[in-house]
């Protein structure tokens, strides 16, 4: 059978115009337009572009949800088996649109999607988890390479074939870990890798670490005697009994607890929920992780303005980076709203 594919492009690749036409509303044309010709050729008869959706980059950016809904409904009308957007190369708005629509179509209709972007296109980082993003050049000069890779990856998905690694297929890592079987045991592979590393030869890790954000350092506190200081910990300090059931590892939530009038975290009143270290010492005296006692002294002395009456806590034991980020953002919002000037974050 020939699979039915709907293709998304912007006003420029549709030949409608450049920046001056960037606010055109989404429209649907039957068959191929522009890069869809290359896509059709790359499908080699196994699939066919049955319709092309065109939308201005600005219009999309201003109406993301409505336009995504509209496009998804059109894709459904055309009874598509798969959806392709772009390539968007290094075009910021177009790339973001490609990623957003692929994710929306995939989510709403459950059909395979693929786009192609320059890895530094903001759309790549934003949407690589929700769709396959083929690595493309930074300009339309890379059309010739990007389109066959998109076609091949979409065909594989539509046929239900196994998808290879990001390197094999040419897509940007989605951050998914998959178990693999190797002939050699881990110890041997590790030694092989070490030898390569010692020789200065290229080697590839089997367990890539996530890339963490960097933020610019905040300015120093000018007047500590007026500052409101808050305590946050990833060491799992909670009121005794762990009322919010924060998991001992892979935490799904964080806690917010009132320490108004609490001068010292006493045994039997506070404990740790953390399952990744020996809890004995923290359970005996939780101040060893969350230094409420000395901060109360410091507050009394007037060295700081005040200790914020709420502290935030979670467990940093195998907790997903995505969850940590979510917790951090929410804590940050609440701390900011409470007028906190600085945070002491303790980790175990």
């Amino acid at each position: 059978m020939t699979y039915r594919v709907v293709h998304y492009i912007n006003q420029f690749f549709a030949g409608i115009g450049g920046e001056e036409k960037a606010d055109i509303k989404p429209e649907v044309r039957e068959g191929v337009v522009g890069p869809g010709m290359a896509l059709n050729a790359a499908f080699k008869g196994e699939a066919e572009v049955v319709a092309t959706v065109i939308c201005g980059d600005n219009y999309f950016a201003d109406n993301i949800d409505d336009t995504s809904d509209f496009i998804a409904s059109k894709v459904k009308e055309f009874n598509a088996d798969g959806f392709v957007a772009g390539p968007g190369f290094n075009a910021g708005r177009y790339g973001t649109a490609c990623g957003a629509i692929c994710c929306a179509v995939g989510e709403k209709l459950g059909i395979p999607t693929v786009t192609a972007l320059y890895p530094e296109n903001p759309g790549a980082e934003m949407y690589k988890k929700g769709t396959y993003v083929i690595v493309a050049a930074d300009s339309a000069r890379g059309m010739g390479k990007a389109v066959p890779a998109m076609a091949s990856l979409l065909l594989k998905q539509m046929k239900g074939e196994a998808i290879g690694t990001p390197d094999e297929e040419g897509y940007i890592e989605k951050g998914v870990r998959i178990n693999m079987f190797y002939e050699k045991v881990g110890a041997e592979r590790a030694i092989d890798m070490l030898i390569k590393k010692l020789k200065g030869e290229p080697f590839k890790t089997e367990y890539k670490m996530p890339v963490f954000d960097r933020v610019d350092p905040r300015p120093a506190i000018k007047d500590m005697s007026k500052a409101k200081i808050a305590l946050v910990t990833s060491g799992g300090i909670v009121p005794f009994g762990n009322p919010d059931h924060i998991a001992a590892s892979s935490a799904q939530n964080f806690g917010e607890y009132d320490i108004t009038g609490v001068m010292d975290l006493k045994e039997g009143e506070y404990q740790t929920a953390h399952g990744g270290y020996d809890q004995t010492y923290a359970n005996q005296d939780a101040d060893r992780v969350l230094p409420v006692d000395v901060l109360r002294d410091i507050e009394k002395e007037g060295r700081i303005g005040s200790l914020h009456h709420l502290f935030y806590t979670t467990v940093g034991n195998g907790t997903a980076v995505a969850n940590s980020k979510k917790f951090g953002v929410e804590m940050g919002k609440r701390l900011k709203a409470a007028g906190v000037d600085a945070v002491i974050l303790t980790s175990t």
Partner: protein
Amino acid sequence: MDLQNQQRVKDAAEKYDPADIVVVLGSSDAEGAEIYAETVCNGDPTYAGPLAGVPLGLAVYDVFDQEIRDEADPEEWENQISMMEMVLEPEALAEAVKGIRDQYSKYTL
């Protein structure tokens, strides 16, 4: 290539006998020259313009190609182009366009 210029090349190829048309490029880099050459021979490789999927097959040469150079007025060449010849990579440019011409041009000089 600029979309309007693609249209004008397309119009020219319709108005005149394509066999008589010779496209001469003055690109600054080999990669760009290839894109231009491919656009007028095999169709717009970026699929954004009027020449998308339109293989005109025109004869295309880089201005530094020996065959084209031989036809230029030596004095004018000296005045107009010799400076850029020192800055650019004339052989790489000529070679890049030749590669595309050999693959896609239906006509030659």
